[in-house]
């Protein structure tokens, strides 16, 4: 799931090298932390949070198969 978010985020930002993704695995829930360059924040969030929402939707589809829950946190 970390790979998934990394793949999406790197494709959307201007500074792919600044993209950092961490996965904090819990028993049932995983937290995926996404960090991007400050000026790229808008790109991973999107207008009215649309991009962030789409990423979260895909992430929850991805976690269904693993019988887990995943939460995406975008860090500032």
């Amino acid at each position: 799931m970390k790979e998934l978010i990394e793949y999406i985020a790197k494709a959307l930002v201007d500074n792919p090298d600044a993209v950092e993704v961490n996965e904090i695995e819990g028993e049932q829930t995983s937290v995926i932390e996404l960090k991007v360059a400050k000026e790229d924040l808008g790109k991973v969030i999107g207008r009215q949070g649309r991009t962030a929402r789409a990423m979260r939707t895909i992430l929850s589809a991805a976690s269904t198969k693993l019988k887990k829950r995943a939460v995406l946190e975008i860090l500032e």
Partner: protein
Amino acid sequence: METQRIFEGKTVDHAIEEALKYFECTRDELEVDVITKGSTGIFGIGGRKAQIRVNYVPKTQEEECSKEEETPEREAEEGHVAQGAEVEGPSQVEMEEETREEGPPREHLEAEPFMEEAQEILSELLRLSNIDATVKIEMDSQNGPYLNVESEDLSLVIGKGGQNLGAFKYVMNLMLKRRHEGCPTIEVDAQGYLEKRRQQIEASARRLAEKAKKSGRSQSLEPMNARERRFVHLAVKRIKGVTTKSVGEGDSRRVVIYPQRRRGGGSGGRPRQRRLNRQSGGRDRRH
């Protein structure tokens, strides 16, 4: 639709807002005369509403046509916006997107060179999402090339109300547009889901339109994306005695079907607004 109308609001700005919503247009298409400026009164009691007279001057046909080509899909527009471009009023795009009758077939030759790349991106997204699926490039005689997702886990590909499919489509197109500016939005289907969904939407639109007519009350559909709302507008357009309008913003934007009032004026039933008027001093009707 009449082009001149009086609007009210707490302030002049609010009234203009109402007018924009009513005509579903941009600010520069409206000529506004202020009749009275609003005053708030004390604790909102005894305040007067602002009233404006609005003249709606739609842009010419040619302009609209060229705009349609630039923004063939709302997603396309939003894709750009997400990348920090300038925003025009969303309502304008909305109006063109939703209420336009099936016009000339959209330019689909353009999409062709991007199909393989789109296919690759979508396959990768699905693979990374742990979904076993095959993405195929297919051709629709009317709408041109599109991607078709085939999978054992179809329900996972589609998601509730198509939200997963929508998210995959949105992210794939966003990525594609990052690489190729001006690339058209590419449609993503999953084994005929889009057509099935369209039929469902049209059926429930017609059912609610009948209900609105019988009961005299407006009926609200569930929130939908621009494409789906358009199906509702077009399906209900053929039914007499009701009108449709999109309300709400963003994710909660949905179509409301209004029964038409006998006295023809305007887009008919807005019972809520009327009630509000009466409560706050009911200038027109009281005594």
